[in-house]
């Protein structure tokens, strides 16, 4: 078990952690690497930021009042 990951290993693990569960140990390995490596830290922050930006974007998408009314009309038949 080694503690210090190389940048490549860290990035592979980090991108995986965005969508899948990783072990507690792996989480600690990532944290440790990111606290010491400026480049990987920058990369990780940029990916987080992109995810957040699009998350915000989709949460702003709502059905218009007209659309809701239209659906209700159809339902009432």
């Amino acid at each position: 078990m080694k503690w210090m990951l190389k940048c490549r290993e860290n990035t592979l693990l980090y991108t995986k952690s965005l969508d899948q569960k990783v072990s507690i140990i792996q989480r600690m390995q990532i944290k440790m690497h990111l606290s010491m490596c400026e480049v990987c830290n920058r990369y990780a922050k940029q990916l987080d930021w992109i995810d957040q930006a699009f998350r915000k974007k989709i949460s702003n998408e709502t059905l218009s009042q007209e659309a809701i009314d239209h659906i209700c009309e159809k339902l009432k038949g």
Partner: protein
Amino acid sequence: MNQSIHSWVTQYGDTLYRYALTRVNNRSDAQDLVQETFLAAYKSGNFEGRSKTSTYLIGILRHKIMDHFRKVYRHKQHFSENEMPRDQTEDDDLNSRPSPQGEIFDSMFIPAGCWAEPVADWGRTPENALLDSEFNQILDGCLEKLPDTQRSAFMMRTLEEQKTEDICKDFEISPTNLGVLLFRARTQLKKCIEISWFKGKEEIS
């Protein structure tokens, strides 16, 4: 009754609409699919009961989406074959080459495991950039440039209620392959945003 229909549609409408949007990428199609979903749920009766749950409604919506794609691509599969990553096996050996993420990932690093090129500095990430309509257009533009599968998988990840396992089921792929799709999507988005936004700002200042 009218009141309860209205609150039913209001309560679940947006969730269904966002889900549909991530798949069809077209507001009017998404709206139609939501309407069909509510209609089907309503006709099946019992809308006071189980049809109130969003899981049930999303289940119907998923079928509607499949029908939609069958209509649109009568002879074509929804996702083109070559867009899908080749079957990858789950491999936790972080040193294995090539990586499951594929060539794009591997080219980012030199054999010793260090970055091949420094990661571009975005400077201070504009906190309020998302309020900027110009920036929103750039995000839309970058998203449009992604292949359908990547765009769809990535946008589904942005939905809070969508778990990775559900997306794998929808796309009929393994978690590792979904990881590959998402990695490609994020890499391309990052590149596109850098070119369209951050570089542009640098030149201006």
